[in-house]
């Protein structure tokens, strides 16, 4: 059963298995062991980014396609739900219509971009997607009547997942509200989608994608239509990104250009892939967990440390909480230096006895 669940692609490293179990249990119990909206918000974002980054890795790590339009599809999914709930009312049919519309629009745009652009070299394709994503960002900022412009859209969600809805008596001291339902809904959704992507990359289709990434001409010489396989991979990755965007919008009950379309989100995705490890689906889990926890709690950690070193010249200044981005950058450089194949790649190589 486990073999089927993980599609035969096990972590293959004890340390990695332990890290994945800790992440899984941590996310599963977040509302109970880390009470408060902030921890739950970080947990929800980790779940969403696992899906978003896994979809990106399907394209980059497994197919060799670098698409900067990933956040555009993330945004399309988020706008789909936001606009549908805002215009049609906060019920489940609006959510489904918004999600469906976002996924269909993403699939069509991804297919058009693929068919027009995947014949060119990787770098040119990346540039084309960057241009399309930038144009979409500007369009969303200026189409104020539909998208809410720079301010975005605040909208209501169905009562079942609204934070103010009280659903049951407190359980282990935690109030069971709509936010808890939303969190676990998101958790289950992310888990199912992650296992689905894991199945895809370990299927015969996934093997062809890897063959194309390794040696495009050789794959074509065997008889595989490279453009068709690349297009399917791009469409699939983009639709899943749209789905992740829908989940984020439902969680935040808001969507705007800054929350889903910003280039900083694209950078986050790239950093998570590099930290976790390319072409290792588990890399998206480890990378997203480490990166988002550091992004949200490094400043707090520096506050604690600075209290102990206050008054010591230079060191006190360097450990000032406002310098958290500097430490984050340094941690990233160290990570790339010591784990050039990402944390998961390194752990798997070590398990195989390769230094």
């Amino acid at each position: 059963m486990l073999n089927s669940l993980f599609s035969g692609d096990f972590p293959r490293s004890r340390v990695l298995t332990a890290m994945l179990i800790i992440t899984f249990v941590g996310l599963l119990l977040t509302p109970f062991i880390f009470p408060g909206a902030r921890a739950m918000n970080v947990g929800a974002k980790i779940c969403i980014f696992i899906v978003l980054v896994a979809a990106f890795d399907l394209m980059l790590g497994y197919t060799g396609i670098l698409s900067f339009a990933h956040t555009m599809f993330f945004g399309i999914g988020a706008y789909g739900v936001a606009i549908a709930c805002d215009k049609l009312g906060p019920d489940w049919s609006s959510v489904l219509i918004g999600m469906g519309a976002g996924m269909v629009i993403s699939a069509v745009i991804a297919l058009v971009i693929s068919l027009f652009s995947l014949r060119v070299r990787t770098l040119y394709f990346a540039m084309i997607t960057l241009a399309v994503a930038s144009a979409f960002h500007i369009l969303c900022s200026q189409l104020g009547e539909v998208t809410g412009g720079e301010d975005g859209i605040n909208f209501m969600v169905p009562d079942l997942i609204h934070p103010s809805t009280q659903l049951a008596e407190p359980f282990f001291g935690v109030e069971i509200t709509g936010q808890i339902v939303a969190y676990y809904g998101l958790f289950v959704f992310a888990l199912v989608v992650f296992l689905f992507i894991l199945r895809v990359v370990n299927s015969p289709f996934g093997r062809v994608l890897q063959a194309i990434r390794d040696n495009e001409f050789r794959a074509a010489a065997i008889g595989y239509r490279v453009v068709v396989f690349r297009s399917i991979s791009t469409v699939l990755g983009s639709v899943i990104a749209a789905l992740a965007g829908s989940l984020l919008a439902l969680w935040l009950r808001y969507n705007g250009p800054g929350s889903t379309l910003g280039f900083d989100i694209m950078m986050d995705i790239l950093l998570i892939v590099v930290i976790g490890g390319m072409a290792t689906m588990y890399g998206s889990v480890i990378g997203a967990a480490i990166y988002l926890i550091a992004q949200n709690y490094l400043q707090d950690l520096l506050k604690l440390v600075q209290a102990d070193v206050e008054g010591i010249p230079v060191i006190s200044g360097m450990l000032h909480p406002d310098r958290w981005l500097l430490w984050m950058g340094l941690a990233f450089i160290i990570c790339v230096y010591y784990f050039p194949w990402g944390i998961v790649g390194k752990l798997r190589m070590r398990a195989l006895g390769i230094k």
Partner: protein
Amino acid sequence: MKPPILKLENVNTHIGPYHILHGVNFEVPEGGLTMLLGRNGAGKTTSLRTIMGLWTASQGKVIFEGHDITELSTPEIARLGIAYVPENMGVFTELTVRENMVLAARDAKIDSSRLDWIFTYMPALKKFWEQQAGLLSGGQKQMLSIARAMIEPRKLLLVDEPSKGLAPAIIQNLVEAFKALKQTGTTVLLVEQNFNFAKNVGDTVAVMDNGKVVHRGTMAGLAEDEALQTKLLGLSLDSHQ
């Protein structure tokens, strides 16, 4: 007499600004092993890549089983039954030996008796069946590359310098494998620099120079004629043994 399975008629190929093939003409008889010989830069690899559609001929025709395949895409050509083993091995390094073979079989399941037959000539592949192909030695990668082309019955096999960089013992295995392949009736067009290898397996030969075919005949005839070898290839069999 059977018609040739492959025919190149006045094929010209340009790569960027360079004119590489200048009206190549030759035929590959069905069921035999045709050697394509020539000095470095003579246009042998370009000829194979042009047949396979990896580079498109700017002029002329590539005829396979009587059909013009010049304008077809590489996957379409592959699906007609032509397999290509490139010079640089071209294995999928991140995949295992087994996955490489499964990919080569495309939609079909691997024929276990054919696989056993391959293993008799390439036992290393059996030993490293579940190992990542990138971790194989150069010779094993070359074996895998050739085995991948042999896993399914193909009408025509294009092989580019299979013996390059291999140890003599492995080359001998390759010679045996190609001899066995000939027994199955598969047609092979083989580019080679190792004249001894060519002499051992070839039936017919085409020699290229400066993007043109300058000699066609039997391999045995060329192997016996030292003066012709020196003239065409700048070598004699004795000096290459």
